[in-house]
């Protein structure tokens, strides 16, 4: 299964980076959101750390939806989904391959969004670097685990963008809250005991999301 997942991951990354459309769209949307929110801030007083963190995670969430729509869109049109289901490769290889490709794409996008946050919203990490990175990893892991499951659910649906957002966003709320809280703490440098508690909570959600997505994926992806 791991070899097939790696094969799919390599193919998706090649298409995503080679063609660029999905990634560029996501990036432009992220930049646009950050820029628009920066216009609402007063020049004298920068956006608060919590607001900046919320804008970052909101941009990430929308980018994630675009990335999954692009990734699952590759298997539409020529019946490629059926091809992936032929043979004896477990369907979870699709979930894993797509999830891994989305994680790399999302990290690439976020690596460019963070400097935009620094420039337009005048925020930057001043402390809690390890915790902020861990928060990024945990929020993204849970996000792509669940996104890969729900991306499969919305594959082939006419209004897939809406369907994916409607189901995905409410479920990811705990991870977004954690991300906002930890990033705000990292932007201000105010150490707090609650950071650890948020990270543990996110880890628990990740475990639940990843486990449930792994188990449910074959039922969703193989359904006609």
């Amino acid at each position: 299964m791991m070899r097939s997942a790696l094969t799919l991951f390599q193919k998706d990354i090649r298409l995503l980076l080679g063609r660029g459309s999905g990634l560029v769209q996501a990036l432009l949307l992220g930049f646009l959101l950050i820029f628009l929110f920066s216009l609402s801030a007063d020049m004298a007083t920068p956006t608060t750390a919590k607001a900046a963190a919320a804008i970052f995670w909101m941009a990430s969430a929308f980018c994630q939806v675009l990335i999954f729509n692009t990734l699952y869109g590759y298997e539409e049109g020529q019946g490629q989904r059926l091809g992936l289901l032929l043979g004896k490769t477990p369907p979870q290889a699709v979930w894993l391959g797509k999830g891994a490709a989305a994680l790399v794409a999302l990290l690439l996008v976020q690596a460019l969004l963070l400097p935009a946050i620094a420039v337009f919203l005048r925020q930057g990490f001043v402390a809690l670097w390890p915790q902020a990175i861990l928060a990024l990893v945990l929020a993204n892991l849970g996000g792509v685990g669940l996104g890969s499951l729900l991306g499969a659910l919305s594959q082939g649906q006419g209004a897939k963008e809406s369907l994916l957002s409607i189901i995905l966003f409410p479920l990811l709320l705990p991870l977004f809250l954690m991300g906002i809280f930890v990033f705000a703490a990292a932007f201000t440098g105010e150490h707090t005991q609650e950071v650890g508690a948020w990270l543990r909570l996110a880890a628990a959600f990740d475990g639940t999301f990843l486990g449930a997505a792994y188990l449910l994926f074959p039922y969703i992806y193989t359904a006609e």
Partner: protein
Amino acid sequence: MYAALHAVTQFYGSRLVFKGVSLRVEPGQVLLLAGPNGAGKSTLMRLLAGLLLPTQGTVSFGEALQHNRQALAYLGHQSFLYPELTALENLHFWNAWEGGKATRSMCEAVLERVNLLPFADEKVKGFSRGMAQRLTLARVLLQNPLLLLLDEPASGLDTQSSTMLHAEIAAAKQRGAAVVWISHHIAHDIALADAVALLEHKRLAFYGTPAEFATRSTAEPAGGAA
């Protein structure tokens, strides 16, 4: 036995496709599936490919197919090809996905067999229908499968490519592979077949040798099958 259908009845929702179909696919056998449009030929193929579960009855596979991921290859109405990848990349991807370890030279060799080697590094989105069909055939051949399921493989192919298709089916049979083949050109393709199955009137109307089929067709022409 490579695959067998035992008293299979298939519904799509409340619509009956066919009922009580039983047949066997033996090693080295070419089974020609005939029947008018909508008779359920492609449905039967999808059952054999494991893409559908029968409403009633069972589909079983021989030992050789149960433990080999690459043993079964399916060429359906859709090509499974990624338009943004090149011909070589498509072959590589599908081979690796099925657990194969085909090298570039192996992929090139199979592209040469289907006369696509000059287009190996071109993106599939620029291919004509016939070229895409030949590349799909190359994908199937690269697998070196024991059971080939070919749903109208000649569609979009010119005369030269149809001859190549016949040669590949004969070669597969020669090495002991079984081929289940849906064709609308029975008169042309029956020479390669060892058995003919005719789906008509929601049932298996005929299942026997090409000679028996020819006798039956003379006595009672099969609508749209020949």
